[in-house]
C-alpha cells in the first residue's frame, strides 16, 4: 500500500516529489563510493527479496516495507537502493507507476533517512541484544508510520476530496507498523548476537571487507 498509482496525485505534488526525491538520490549517490557498491547491491537485493514475504495480518496479509531497517543498516545508501527496488517493482510487477516514482521514492526514503540519522547512532557493535531490539522496534514502527503519514500527506495535498481516503490509509498502516516493528526488532537483535559488526553504522565506517 506504499505504492501510489499514477493518475491520482496532482501535478504540483508530483513535481515537488520528483524534485526532492531526485535531490535526495543525487546526494546519496555522491556519498556512495564505488568500493561499497557490491555490498550496497547485495543488501538492496536482499531487501527486495525480503519485501516479497507475505506476512499474515489479521484477516488479510501485507508485505514488509523494511525502510526503517534499510535506514539503520544502509544509511544514505538506502535512498538509491529503494529507488532501484521501486523501479523493478513498477516495471516488472506493476506496483505503483512511472510519473509517481519520485513521490513514492521520497515517501519511503525520507523515513529511512530519519531512522538512519535519529536511531542509527544508538546502534554499535557493542549494543546488547535488548538495546538492539528496542532500537529496531522504533525503526520499524517509525519507518512504517512516517511512510503512511507521507502517503496520506501526498494524497491530502492533491485535493480536499482525498482526505477521507488518506485517513483510511493511515488506519491500515497501524497494524502493519506493529508487525513491522516487531519483525525489525527481531532482525536487529539477531544481528547484534550473530553479526554485531554489521551494526557499525555508516558514520563510524563499516567493517572493512
Amino acid at each position, binding site marked *: 500500500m506504499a505504492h501510489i498509482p499514477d493518475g491520482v496525485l496532482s501535478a504540483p505534488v508530483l513535481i515537488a516529489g520528483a524534485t526532492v526525491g531526485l535531490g535526495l538520490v543525487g546526494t546519496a549517490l555522491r556519498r556512495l563510493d564505488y568500493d561499497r557498491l557490491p555490498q550496497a547491491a547485495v543488501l538492496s537485493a536482499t531487501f527486495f527479496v525480503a519485501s516479497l514475504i507475505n506476512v499474515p495480518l489479521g484477516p488479510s496479509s501485507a508485505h514488509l516495507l523494511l525502510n526503517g531497517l534499510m535506514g539503520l543498516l544502509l544509511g544514505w545508501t538506502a535512498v538509491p*537502493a529503494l529507488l532501484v527496488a521501486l523501479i523493478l517493482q513498477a516495471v516488472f510487477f506493476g506496483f505503483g507507476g512511472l510519473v509517481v516514482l519520485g513521490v513514492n521514492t521520497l515517501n519511503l526514503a525520507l523515513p529511512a533517512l530519519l531512522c538512519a540519522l535519529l536511531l542509527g547512532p544508538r546502534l554499535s557493535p557493542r549494543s546488547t541484544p535488548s538495546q538492539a531490539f528496542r532500537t529496531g522496534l522504533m525503526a520499524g514502527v517509525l519507518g512504517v508510520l512516517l511512510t503512511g503519514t507521507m502517503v496520506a500527506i501526498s494524497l491530502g495535498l492533491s485535493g480536499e476530496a482525498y482526505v*477521507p481516503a488518506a485517513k483510511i490509509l493511515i488506519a491500515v498502516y497501524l497494524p502493519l507498523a506493529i508487525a513491522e516493528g516487531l519483525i525489525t526488532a527481531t532482525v536487529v537483535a539477531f544481528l547484534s548476537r550473530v553479526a554485531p559488526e554489521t551494526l557499525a553504522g555508516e558514520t563510524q565506517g563499516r567493517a572493512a571487507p
Partner: protein
Amino acid sequence: MTPLMLSPGGSGWISERDPRLRILCALAFALTTVGLTTPSAAITALLLAASLTRAAGIRPGSLGRRLLALEGFILVLLVTLPFTTPGAAILHVGPLTASAEGIQLAALILLKSNAVVLSLLALVGTLEAVALGHALARLGVPEKLAHLFLMTVRQIHLMQAELGRLRQAMRARAFMPRSDWHTWRSYGWLVGMLLVRSLERAQRILAAMRCRGFDGRLYLLDSTRWETRDTIAAFGCAVLLSGLILLDRMSR
C-alpha cells in the same frame, strides 16, 4: 513461492525495438495519460495500452494478477471519492450522497492508473532487467545508480534462492504463518539470517571482483543499435500521443 519474473519473454515487433525508445515511449505515454481530463480520452489511452500488451505478447492471465496489485490502493479511492467530491448528487447511501463529479473522478483514476501500468508492463516490463539497466545508463542515468541497478538485479536471483532454502527449512519444521508473535519472530530471524548470508556473499563478491581487476567501474558492453524502424516507431508514438491530447481537448 513462485520464481521472480525479472526477464519475462516478450515477442512481436515491440520486443525488437531499441530499449531506450521503449523507456522514452513509456515515459511519454505516462506523462500524457496522467494529464488527461476526459473519460473518453482516458478510455482510449487504456485501449491503446491494452493493445500494446497484446502486441508485446504478454499473456492476459499474468496481466490480471499484476493489475490486482494496484487495486487495493485504488479501491479505497473508488469507495471514498464519489462521496467526498462536491457536485450534483445522484445516489444516496444512508446519510451519504454520491456526486456525479466524484464518480467521474474515480473512474478517471481507475482508467489512467491501469493504462499507465499496462503500457509500462508492455514496453519496459518485457525487457530483460539487465537490458533495462544498460538502457537507463545510456539514457544518462547517473553511473553509480546504473551500476547499483545492474548489480542488484544480478543478486536478486541468488538471494531469492537463498530465501527459498531458508523457507523450505522452516516448512520442514511445520512452520505455518499466522498473525502472532511466533510468526513475526520467526520472520525476523529469517530476514536476519538472509542479511548475514548476503553480507558474507558481498565480501566474497568484492574480493572476486578485485581479483578480476575491478577498479570501481563496470564497463557496459551492449550492442543495441538505433535502427530506422526505431525512428519510425518513435514517430508513430508521437502521433498517437498527440492524438490522445487532441481528443482530450476536443471532448472537454
